[in-house]
């Protein structure tokens, strides 16, 4: 366009500013992505080469032994399976809870709506704190039970408000009204009109819960009582406490040095195995993030 060269006030031309913007963002990309890239490279490398600084860009002494050891390690495999179990049930539970709360709360003519709204929103700002909540969970017999991970969280109120606003703002009111005039009950309308029309926000919320359950370890640590540990809690033993299990020790014939080498490889590989599932999932719903937030953030 001819207009391009008409920049007033001595500003940069669009082309020059494009170059600068791309350069800045490329630098930011590098800073964010490099640590992850480094872990991937290190997971395929000989740990001695990693610690000698030979793996800044490419693997050195390429090996898959780390991954083999990860998949041979019982605690990691069982942690992975437990995480899959908790994430699956937790996500379904959370999304159902969100929906069955958000839909009634989106009914502008629901008597008592304001009071109910207050009832939920208060819990966003005030809580009983760690110990009183722990004592109630204990009293209700959930310690050591998988449901201790799901029930106390109950309704995620912040997300519930986003879903409620989505129902109010993004579901065409005419469709809901038409369905009700046709004789559908509110529940019927919810199932056959509102839910199918809310797939974008459903996808976003499902991914949010998925990520939360997959990455959670604190709840599992205090409520599960050592049983059925999910993957991040297993990783704590490997990454933070740096303990090698006796199972590893018995696998290795090469003595302490070999064991040490394997322990280091397992650190990198187990991080990749634990992080990968969520890193694969989120780009699929990424386009809905902003949209979901925008329509959800507008006050209804």
């Amino acid at each position, binding site marked *: 366009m001819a207009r391009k060269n008409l*920049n007033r006030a001595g500003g940069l031309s669009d082309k020059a500013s494009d170059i600068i913007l791309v350069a800045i963002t490329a630098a930011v990309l590098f800073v964010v992505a490099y640590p992850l890239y480094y872990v991937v490279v290190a997971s395929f490398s000989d740990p001695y080469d990693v610690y000698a600084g030979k793996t800044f860009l490419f693997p050195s002494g390429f090996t898959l032994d780390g991954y083999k050891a990860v998949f041979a390690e019982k605690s990691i495999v069982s942690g992975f399976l437990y995480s899959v179990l908790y994430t699956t049930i937790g996500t379904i539970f959370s999304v159902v809870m969100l929906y069955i709360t958000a839909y009634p709360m989106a009914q502008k003519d629901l008597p008592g709506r304001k009071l109910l709204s207050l009832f939920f929103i208060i819990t966003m700002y005030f809580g009983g704190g760690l*110990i009183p909540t722990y004592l109630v969970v204990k009293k209700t017999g959930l310690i050591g039970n998988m449901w201790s991970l799901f029930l106390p969280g109950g309704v995620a109120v912040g997300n519930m408000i986003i879903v409620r606003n989505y129902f109010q703002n993004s579901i065409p009111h005419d469709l809901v009204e038409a369905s009700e005039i046709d004789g559908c009950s509110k*529940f019927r309308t919810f199932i056959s009109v509102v839910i199918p029309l809310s797939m974008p926000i459903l996808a976003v919320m499902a991914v949010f819960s998925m990520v939360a359950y997959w990455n959670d370890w604190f709840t599992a640590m205090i409520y599960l009582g050592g049983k059925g540990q999910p993957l991040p809690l297993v990783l704590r033993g490997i*990454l933070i406490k740096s303990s090698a299990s006796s199972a590893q020790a018995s696998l290795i014939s090469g003595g302490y040095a070999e064991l040490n080498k394997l322990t280091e490889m397992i650190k990198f590989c187990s991080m990749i195995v634990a992080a990968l599932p969520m890193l694969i999932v989120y780009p699929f719903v990424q386009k809905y993030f902003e949209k979901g937030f925008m329509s959800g953030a507008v006050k209804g």
Partner: protein
Amino acid sequence: MIQMSKATTISQGGAAAARLHSKSLGRRILDNWQMYALLLIPVVLTIIYKYIPMYGIQIAFRDFTPSKGFTGSTWVGLKWFQRFFSAPTCSRMIRNTVLISLYSLLWSFPIPIILSLIINQLRFQRYKRVVQTVLYAPHFISIMIVCGMIRIFLSPSGGLLNLILGTSTDFLTEASAFRTIYIASGIWQDAGWGCIIYLANVDPGLYEAAKMDGASVFQRILHIDLPALLPMAVLNLIMAAGGLMNVGFEKVWLLQTDLNKATSDVIAVYVYQQGIENAKYSYSTAVGLFNTAVNIILLVIVNKIASKLSDVEFV
């Protein structure tokens, strides 16, 4: 209830509203029985796991024993609070908690704004998409893994940072490095994700107009993007200031070593150790309550400021 039916009239309009308006309250409740049925489980869960623990906060003033329950245990007044304030590490924990979150706020508040201003100017859609995808990635990684990465990268023998610097410092044993580690890794993990609320806020029409007028990128940022995201930024700042005492337990606990405690000892970790590890239920609850009380005071103050600001700026 009169108010409510008024609201109904306004929001729905037309025949439907007139129909609703004419119904009695009892009738409307009956009409909505399915909605109340849906709410039953969420309400019960919220009462049990949110409201009963709130009621249980009173054990901060009692000598709680599990057999006597929340209300049956002996009343001890402010005993536990006095014990906390006379604990040798009390002032250190309060100072560390405030400093960690204050510095976190100062650094991690402006960065997402600057990032989103830059991202919004990117004109190559595919590149923009890639930038966003990569920047969001760390947010989806467990704090456990992030702390594992921090420990490996900062390791004195062969850690990435020492390899780059050519040193062999054990950063996690240096009290002076703790806050920097905590905050820098926090920015790495969440600054990209923090952009999301600032992105796509701008009316595209405004943009085209500015381009036609020959505004440079910098002028467009200054006159279009920045004013568009300012209300959200103010709101965010207020919310963050209200949670100033909320230093997350998880990351501090995972990065704490015996040698960096001078700066890494925070209230949240103490609450966990006293409560869960040592089973001092009442004492831990009292310490937690003190933390919450400070937060509530901050929230009220910030809210006051917010409503004043909104009178001036938003309306």
